[in-house]
């Protein structure tokens, strides 16, 4: 069995040069031929190379248990379908462990790439270490020319999802656009197509491309309604609610959230009510009903008592409402709770909420907005290239200076806010508005 491509994939993954791997075992040019499967090396050489790479030669050199290529591919696809359909981390972990026990080496080298891509997809779902996943992606990108069209699709999906998981929505959407272009050229089953439509719907909603997102969510929803996948259906209704809210179609947004809520009630999905309450709160906030918004945020927080990280976004939104209402005592109380929670969780993905809570706390303190806190917040959002938030806090700081009659500083930050607003909206000059 030729396994040169396996050795190459692992060497690239470990960022090891051919000279280093070959040293004392064979010449680099001989290794190069092995990796391209141009020659059959002796078992001893294969074992030495694998040993240096920290691989278990036994796993790869034994026959692939009792499975044929077709059976192995079917097993892979079934596992992939079940993981996507169930969306359950425990189940994904179990399937990943199962796959890692398998020998993926067959005469058809292409099977190995499908195997690697599906393993990576599972790791992504398990939210494994980003650096590790990124390394795997870079190694796979080197092999992309050897991929068939379906494998290219799987690769792009992993890449887009990695960007999304790291909150680089713009980059994620660029990759999703490429996937859209290739969708009619690959033959996907309905469950897989529905999942892609859902992924595109979430991605485009996050990037505020509402026309595109509603198109894809409608397609995903049609499938999930037919297949009675109630949780997925509920997620689709939540997205439709958000899209309608963003489009200022408030009644349609309420209708969508009510449908999501009914699914929760009818199918005892109590763990999902927190997100629905949060979004109804956000809807009321947009409609100018701060007190109603706060009521729903309170319900959301108590429903999310198991998920502290899920609570933080709601706490932050609550603080925003109290700020609008100038309810300083309550604002301070929730700022304290949120900041304490952030320190408990120690999750860098939540850092943006920490800076924002500090900003609100400082803005409404007796001493007034501290320059240091304000600039830290602005610099944080600049550093993560979130120019919408940079713009927002530049405005808040400018208004603060203006209220204190510090007109020069105020003018500087108004000007900065416009600069970041331009960047956020891809505008170069005022004439383009």
């Amino acid at each position, binding site marked *: 069995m030729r396994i040169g491509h396996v050795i190459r994939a692992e060497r690239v993954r470990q960022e090891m040069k051919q000279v280093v791997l070959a040293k004392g075992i064979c010449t680099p040019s001989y290794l190069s031929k092995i990796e391209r499967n141009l020659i059959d090396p002796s078992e001893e050489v294969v074992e030495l190379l694998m040993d240096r790479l920290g691989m278990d030669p036994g796993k790869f050199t034994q026959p692939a248990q009792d499975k044929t290529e077709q059976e192995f591919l079917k097993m892979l696809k079934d596992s992939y379908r079940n993981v996507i359909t169930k*969306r*359950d*981390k*425990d189940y*994904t972990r179990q399937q990943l462990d199962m796959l890692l026990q398998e020998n993926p080496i067959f005469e058809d080298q292409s099977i190995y790439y499908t195997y690697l891509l599906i393993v990576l997809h599972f790791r*992504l*779902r398990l939210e494994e270490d980003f650096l590790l996943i990124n390394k795997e992606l870079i190694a796979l990108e080197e092999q992309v020319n050897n991929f068939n069209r379906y494998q290219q699709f799987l690769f792009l999906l992993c890449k887009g*999802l990695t960007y*999304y*998981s790291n909150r680089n929505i713009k980059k994620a959407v660029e990759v999703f656009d490429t996937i859209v272009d290739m969708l009619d050229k690959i033959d996907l089953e309905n469950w897989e197509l529905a999942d892609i439509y*859902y992924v595109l719907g*979430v991605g485009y*909603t*996050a990037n*505020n491309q509402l026309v595109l997102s509603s198109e894809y969510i409608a397609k995903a929803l049609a499938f999930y309604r037919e297949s009675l996948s109630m*949780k997925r259906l*509920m*997620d689709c209704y*939540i*997205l439709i609610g*958000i899209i309608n*809210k*963003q489009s200022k179609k408030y009644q349609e947004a309420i209708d969508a959230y009510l449908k999501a809520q009914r699914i929760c009630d009818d199918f005892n999905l*109590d*763990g*999902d009510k*927190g*997100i629905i309450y*949060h*979004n109804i709160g*956000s809807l009321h906030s947009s409609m100018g009903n701060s007190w109603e918004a706060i009521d729903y945020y309170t319900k959301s927080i108590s*429903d*999310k008592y*198991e*998920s502290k990280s*899920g609570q933080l*976004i*709601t706490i*932050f*939104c609550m603080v*925003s409402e109290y700020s609008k209402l100038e309810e300083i005592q309550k604002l301070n109380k929730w700022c304290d709770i949120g900041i304490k929670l952030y320190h408990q969780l120690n999750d860098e993905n939540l850092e*943006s909420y920490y800076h924002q809570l500090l900003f609100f706390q400082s803005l409404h303190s007796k001493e007034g907005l501290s320059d240091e806190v304000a600039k830290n917040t602005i610099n944080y959002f600049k550093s993560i290239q979130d120019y*919408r*938030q940079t*713009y927002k806090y530049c*405005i808040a700081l400018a208004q603060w200076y203006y209220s204190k009659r510090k*007109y020069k500083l*105020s*003018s500087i930050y*108004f*000007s900065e*806010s*416009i600069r970041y*607003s*331009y960047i*956020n*909206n891809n*505008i170069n000059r*005022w004439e383009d*508005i």
Partner: protein
Amino acid sequence: MKKIVSLFFAILLLAGFTMTNQASASTKDELPKILNATSYSVSQLQ
């Protein structure tokens, strides 16, 4: 002079807000998860 300054800031504010309304999803919405189930049940958190 004061009127001019006020007008200047009013224009700046208007320009900024108009653009916000045109773009960017609100970070105050809680999107369902893209990969795993959204549920906050205990089994999802372990």
